[in-house]
């Protein structure tokens, strides 16, 4: 397992960092929020991201992707996190592409992957049903209906669920949980306005009937896709934490009180130094998790849980400290630092909060 980036990953990283800085600064998220944009991200921007190849990192070369893996995608997601970019990277490029690649039939791949890769179609994983991430607690049912299935029940906090062309629904069948490809419009969908201004939806399935060809292959695909999601989100959160931290340190140097820069005060210095350590430590965990997933290492579950837990804690810290150290201006909507703290809480809860990750880590380590 390498903990430093190779040249290829470094190139993706540099491209992504400048792309998001130029094309999607935080003002873009603010505008989506203030315009009450019905989509919640820019479709034009998403097509540009697709053109850069980012939708194909988790898709095999035979299927039109580049199979660059999580090491590549985490670079993009970290860069997106620096500018809090709203995009279907998670729902479509990570989860949709993973599940189709890992568990799709040839026909399913042929139908869904090309428009996904082109940035034309959005997918969304409809998994959780309650207020906490609990992939083992699925109550939505898929009962046999002729050759196909009849789906009933409700999903919530479905990322990009309200505009997804296709939902991937986890539902309980007679022989365990399975994943079904369901047309977005077949479900009744309510957009949830979240504190971070990013997309989430409640999705209701009332007697939605799908054919036998709608089911993805049973197997470990969901677990692996979720571990990728946790790692991808941890990378995004690392980017957000780094940015909140960098901005805060800059503010400590610029802001003067009592005739001196407030960054000369030891009470602030020590906390800034502490944040620096946490960001660096989180970075190591994220790189290790991505690398472990790409190489199929058998300690991947532990490393993924570690990465997400550290990202949860570190973005929490940098978001909170960012607001506090900016003082009054940090409380204003006009200033951007507050966006990081808002994003923090939603990202923490998504795909496993810290106690979920600790429990899973302990389990993986045999205690």
């Amino acid at each position: 397992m390498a903990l430093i980036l190779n040249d290829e990953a470094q190139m993706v990283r540099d491209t992504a960092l400048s792309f998001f800085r130029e094309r999607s600064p935080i003002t873009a998220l603010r505008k989506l929020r203030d315009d009450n944009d019905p989509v919640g991200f820019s479709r034009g921007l998403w097509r540009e991201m697709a053109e850069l190849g980012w939708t194909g990192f988790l898709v095999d070369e035979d299927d039109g992707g580049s199979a660059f893996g999580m090491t590549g995608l985490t670079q993009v997601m970290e860069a997106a996190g620096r500018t809090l970019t709203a995009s279907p990277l998670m729902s479509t490029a990570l989860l949709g592409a993973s599940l189709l690649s890992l568990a799709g039939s040839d026909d399913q791949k042929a139908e869904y992957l090309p428009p996904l890769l082109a940035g034309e179609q959005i997918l969304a994983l409809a998994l959780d049903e309650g207020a906490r991430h609990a992939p083992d607690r699925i109550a939505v049912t898929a009962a046999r209906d002729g050759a196909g299935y009849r789906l009933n029940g409700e999903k919530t906090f479905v990322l990009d669920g309200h505009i997804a062309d296709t939902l991937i629904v986890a539902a309980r069948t007679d022989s365990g949980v399975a994943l079904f490809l369901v047309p977005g419009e077949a479900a009744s969908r309510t957009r949830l306005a979240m504190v971070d201004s990013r997309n989430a939806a409640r999705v209701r399935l009332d007697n939605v009937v799908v054919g036998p060809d709608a089911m993805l292959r049973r197997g470990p695909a969901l677990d692996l896709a979720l571990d990728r999601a946790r790692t991808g989100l941890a990378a995004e959160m690392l980017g957000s934490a780094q940015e909140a931290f960098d901005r805060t340190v800059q503010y400590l140097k610029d802001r003067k009180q009592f005739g001196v820069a407030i960054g000369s005060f030891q009470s602030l210095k020590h906390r800034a130094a502490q944040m620096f350590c946490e960001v660096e430590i989180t970075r190591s965990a994220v790189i290790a998790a991505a690398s472990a997933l790409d190489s199929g290492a058998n300690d991947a579950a532990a490393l993924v849980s570690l990465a997400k837990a550290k990202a949860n804690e570190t973005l929490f810290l940098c978001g909170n400290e960012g607001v506090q150290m900016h003082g009054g201006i940090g409380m204003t909507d006009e200033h951007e630092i507050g966006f990081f703290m808002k994003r923090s809480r939603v990202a923490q809860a998504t795909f496993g909060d810290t106690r979920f990750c600790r429990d899973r880590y302990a389990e993986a380590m045999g205690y």
Partner: protein
Amino acid sequence: MSNFRAETRAWLEENCPPAMRSFMPENEQVAGGKRAEYVRPEQKIWLDRMAEKGWTAPTWPKQYGGGGLSNEQAMILEEEMQDLGCRVPLRGMGLSMLGPVLLEYGTEEQRQTHIPPIVRGEIRWCQGYSEPEAGSDLASLRTRAVLQGEHFLVNGHKIWTSNAHVSDWIFCLVRTDPTAKKHEGISFLLIDMADPGVRPRPIRLISGASVFCETFIENVRVPVGNLVGPLNKGWTIAKRLLEHERKGIGGIAARNAAKFEVPLEAVAKQFAGEQDGKIADPILRDRVAAYSMDAHAFQLTRRRAAEEAEAGAPPGPLSAMFKLQGTELNKRRYEMLLEAEGFQGLGWEGEGFTSDELRFTREWLRSKANSIEGGTSEVQLNIIAKRVLGLPD
């Protein structure tokens, strides 16, 4: 490299006595020196065999008795030693601090004189840095060295001179120009403790042990040739040596995770019980996981830094981060052990406690010094804020 690994392993298997492939209690650590005492004869055999190959100082140049290995080879040696459970044959301030500094700043004569005996464990060194009035504010030190012809006349009082009572030589920071600004009048001097004017006195610590001393230096004449680096420019060397020291102290967590250390989760299971393979107390389990995850992420960060260094990134003030995090984690580990053990973790001596339990009590107390020695955690935070983040004074 795979050849090197195979050869190294074969050599270790052949030469490391079985008794040296076991957990090493504190009192069996080998630091060498003229007054070295060996609890078991294998300690000396193992030291001599490793020193013969220069593997007590694997990356030091061969011409001074070192192993002449590349960083990558040294890492392989370390991995193979850990895998076989081989004890570190020799430790001490000569190896971890003075040697690297002499290689960088010493004269050829100083290197020839002092480095080979360090590699062979013949001379034990101690560190004369802190003084009663110069702790975190180290540069305010007052030990005076007055140049008189071919000698310095040294007078002063050092403290926290670890193991001074069993050491042969002391490297000292001394004030050679009392009129200059405090950082600019300091020199770095090597002093032979055979001089009766150097008098170490052990200090009893909260752990009951006396690894620290205070050392009185009274009218000691030190040859000019024992000055390392230019006169009055000792602070640069002092800081570099501290970086080496911090690297060593920050590595404590790594050493304790080694092959024979009792895993925290096993202790937690032993005392809190086990249910379906889990620590039965869910709160303790969560706290054990929280600690273990932080320690794991820290190890990954050390490895990342090592890989970056190998790839050519300059080493820098990050040693402050490793010192800070490594020592704080080590302290937390002992707090977690005590918490898991309850009353059983609070024994001082005698019956009713296992040797591990009694050892943990003492080590818990000893660990409190980790975040004080070599610069307090607060000083490390200052260093990160200033030198990494560029925050103003």
